C-alpha cells in the first residue's frame, strides 16, 4: 500500500513559483500592450476630436469594431488571419497586437472625452495669450485633460490586465492557462483557482486603490 504510485502529484511550492512566473507573463503582456496602446489611443483620440468628417467616417467605426466584438473572437480571428497575409506570429505576438489595438480603441474614446472636457473658453484664452496650437495642447489641454481622464484610464488599464487572461486561448501560458495546466495535473481545482484568484487580486486591487487615492488627492 505504501508504494502505491499516484497518477497525480499534489500542489507544491514549485507550482507556486510556476504560477508566479505565469503571473509575470500576464503582467508583461498587459504592461506592453497598455503602454503602446495608450500612446496610439492618445493619438487616435486627438484625431477623433480634431479630424471632423474624415475621422468620424473612417476611424470611428474601425475603433468601434474593437469595442463591440468580444476580445476572444478578435484574438482567434487575428491569430488565424495573420498567416493568411503572410505574418507568422506566435501566440504572444498576436495577443500583443490585439490587446494593443483593443487598448488603443478604448483609450481613444477616453482621450476624446478628456480633450472635450477642457472646454473651448480655456483654449481660446490660451491662444489669446499667444500660445500656438501645440503649446496650447501641451501646456493647457494635457495637464487638465490628464486629470479628468485618469480614473477612466486606470479602469481601461485594469480591464486590459484582466482581459489578458483571454490570450490563453491562443496557447500563451499566462496565469489562467498555468492554473489550468496545474488543475489537470494535481486534480485540486479549488485550491489552484484560489491561488490564481489571489494573484489576479494582488495585481489589480492595489492599482485600483492607488488610483482612488490619487483621485481623492487631486480633487481636493
Amino acid at each position: 500500500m505504501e508504494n502505491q504510485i499516484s497518477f497525480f502529484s499534489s500542489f507544491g511550492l514549485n507550482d507556486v513559483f510556476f504560477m508566479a512566473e505565469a503571473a509575470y507573463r500576464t503582467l508583461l503582456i498587459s504592461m506592453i500592450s497598455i503602454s503602446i496602446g495608450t500612446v496610439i489611443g492618445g493619438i487616435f483620440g486627438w484625431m477623433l476630436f480634431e479630424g471632423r468628417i474624415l475621422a468620424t467616417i473612417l476611424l470611428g467605426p474601425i475603433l468601434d469594431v474593437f469595442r463591440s466584438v468580444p476580445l476572444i473572437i478578435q484574438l482567434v480571428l487575428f491569430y488565424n488571419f495573420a498567416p493568411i497575409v503572410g505574418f507568422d506570429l506566435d501566440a504572444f505576438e498576436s495577443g500583443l497586437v490585439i490587446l494593443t489595438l483593443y487598448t488603443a480603441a478604448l483609450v481613444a474614446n477616453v482621450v476624446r472625452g478628456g480633450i472635450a472636457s477642457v472646454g473651448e473658453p480655456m483654449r481660446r484664452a490660451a491662444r489669446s495669450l499667444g500660445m500656438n496650437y501645440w503649446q496650447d495642447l501641451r501646456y493647457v489641454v494635457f495637464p487638465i485633460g490628464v486629470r479628468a481622464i485618469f480614473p477612466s484610464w486606470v479602469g481601461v488599464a485594469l480591464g486590459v490586465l484582466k482581459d489578458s487572461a483571454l490570450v490563453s486561448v491562443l496557447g500563451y501560458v499566462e496565469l489562467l492557462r498555468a492554473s489550468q495546466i496545474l488543475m489537470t495535473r494535481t486534480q485540486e481545482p479549488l485550491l489552484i483557482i484560489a491561488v490564481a484568484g489571489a494573484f489576479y487580486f494582488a495585481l489589480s486591487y492595489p492599482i485600483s486603490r492607488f488610483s482612488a487615492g490619487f483621485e481623492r488627492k487631486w480633487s481636493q
Partner: protein
Amino acid sequence: MFDYNFHWRPVLKSLPDLLEASLVTLQVAVLSMIIGIIIGLFLSVIKIKTRGLPKWFATCWIELARNTPALFQLFFFGFGLGALGIHLTPFFIVLAGLSFNNAGYLAENFRGGFNAVPETQIKAARSLGMNLWQAYTRILIPQVLRIVYYPMTNQFVWAVLMSSLGMLVGFRELSGETQFFASKTYRIFEYFAAAAIIYYVMVKLILFVSKLLAARLFRY
C-alpha cells in the same frame, strides 16, 4: 495576394444555426442582467446601510467581481464548484459567472445612484405611511435605475460580449457554436469573421434599442 482560398459557403449554410445560437447568447445575457440587477441592488444597499459581517460580505463580492478576470470567475463556477461536488451544466456556469460579475459591477454603479438621491426622500416616504420596503421599491430604486440607465446599458453590452467565454466551458452560444463549426470544417477564419459580424450587429442593435427605450422612458 492571398495564398489562401476563402470558403464562405459552409458559413452561409450554417448561418441559421449561428443566428439561433446568438439568441442563446442574448438569452443568457438578459437573464444574467436581471439576476445581476437584483443582487446588485441588494449588495449596494447592504454596503451602504450595514456594518460588520454583511458589509464585509458585500465588499468582498464587489471587489472580487471587479478585480478578477471574468474567465477566472467562469472557471470558478465550472471547475471550482465541480470540486465541491456541485456540477453545473455549461448554461448555468455561464449564467452564474455572468450574474456574479454583473452584480459586482452594477452594485458599484448603484452605489453612486443611491448617493445621488437625497436621503430626505426616504424620510418623506416614511412619513407618508410607507414602510421601508415600499419606500425603497417605489421611491428610491426607480430613481436609482434611471440615474444608472446608461451604465446599465454598457453593462448589458459587456455581458453579451463576455458570454462569448462560454466557448471555453463548452457552452453552445454564438462563440461556442462558431467554434464547433470551425473545428468541424477547418474554416476557422471564415466562421469567426461571421461571428464577429453577428456580434457587432447585435451590439449596435442593443444600443439602438436602448436609445429608443430611453427616449420613451425619460420623456418627462
